[in-house]
């Protein structure tokens, strides 16, 4: 399966993981390749790092109105990963109700098929999700 985004790595062998690009000078973590750090402006000091599969919920919204064909409601979540980096994704296996979602709750990153979505050539994709840890 192909990765849904460029910061999701699906190796031939072993488990998928999220990849960050970290500035060796200031420690800022970016998603996607780059050569210049937009925080400290250092050039050519960016290294690939494997991001953590655990983190905490920083903020969220419960989405009830989306574009046609997209299943609602779902939880759009911003997660601060342990050891750095923030990623956005769907928080799954939680009832989409504010009562059940707590700021700072521990989550883990899980990997799976991209909700059956295929590209125009019929390829399947792998994506990532968050679920309560």
């Amino acid at each position, binding site marked *: 399966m192909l990765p849904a985004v460029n910061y999701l790595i699906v190796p031939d062998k072993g488990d998928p993981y999220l990849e960050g690009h970290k500035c060796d000078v200031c420690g800022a973590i970016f998603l996607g390749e780059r050569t210049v750090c937009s925080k400290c402006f250092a050039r050519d000091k960016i290294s690939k790092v494997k991001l953590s599969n655990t983190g905490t919920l920083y903020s969220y*919204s419960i989405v009830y109105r989306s*574009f046609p064909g997209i299943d609602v409601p779902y939880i759009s979540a911003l997660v601060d990963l342990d050891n750095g980096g923030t990623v956005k994704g769907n928080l799954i296996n939680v009832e989409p109700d504010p009562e059940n979602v707590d700021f*700072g709750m521990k989550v883990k990153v899980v990997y799976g098929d991209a909700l059956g979505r295929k590209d125009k050539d019929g390829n399947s994709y792998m994506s990532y999700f968050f679920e309560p840890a």
Partner: protein
Amino acid sequence: MSDVYVLGVDMIKFGRFPDRTVPNIGAEAALMALDDAGLTIKDMQAMYCGNLGQANAMVGQRILQEIGQTGIPVVNCANACATGATAFREAWMSIKAGMYDVVLAVGVEQMGKGLLGGAGGGDGIPKEGLLGSGTMPCVFAEAGMEHSSKYGTTFEQFAKISVKNHHHSTLNPKAMYQIETPLDDVMNAEMISYPNTKLMCSVNVDGSAAAVLVSEKKAKELGMQRAIKVRASALASDPYTDRDLVMPDVNACTRIAAKDAYEQAGLGAEDVSLVELHDCFATAEMLHYENLGLCKDGEAGMMIDEGHVELGGKIPVNVSGGLLSKGHPLGATGIANIYEVCSHLRGEAGKRQVEGAKIGMTHVIGLGTACAIHILEKP
């Protein structure tokens, strides 16, 4: 450098005009602003035009093709929801630079209905609903929920902002809607992206607004009776913040622009009589009470609970009805809120007049990100 004055300013009543063209809608406000200044297109030395939807289609020149082609320089600006304010600011700068004495700024937009943002595109598969949501109601809901996480801000407090702005709009004949929306109605309206219900999302409308800016020399020559002085014009982009790759940061950018604006004017928030700020969603307005220094961090919920931001309160916010009820034609919004503040400073705001208004502030923010703030004064 010369001080800069707004000599004429106006906006059309916002609405939906599917049978008109963008330049035609813009031309109407341009003529109204010229009339308000007592000038004609022949007096204009340059024009700055803000429009987003047709940013590559020479809207400024096409407006002049409707109202008078004099051969003056025209610059078309696009800067997300700060587009109109950016056009105004470019006009201000051209006078500050000593290039011109009389300049026209126009903002115009024709919007479709429906959700903004999020559709994505590019290669592969759509990401909406797979990796969270990029729709504007969700992005601003997430920004509001960050405030909830820090300070315990509630759904009800966010909803009260919408009640207030809809109430204000009942006093503004140029607003898209003039209807009261009690708290129950706001909270029980269709949930779009928690905590933003449909009544907590700005209205997509068509609209235009325009201003004639002049140098101090010209203002004195033409008469200062209704002139409004531009005390500050600030524009900022988003600085690096830790989460900004996945969470557009509307706070840091606004704080930079606010600091710059207060410094330019030599004023503080306590000097401001009224504020028109970027309430694209109810959750957004909450954040900007603090970002603009109207209260301390963590006090925004109290500002709405205590009524400080209502007409008649300590610092009325969005007495026009705001984007939530007046409507939000993206490229026009930044000049429309300058019109609103000028109306109060001139004492011409009718039933919604902020009594004794001396200094007013306007604020817009476009994701991507651009924040523009103006401070205006009745001389």
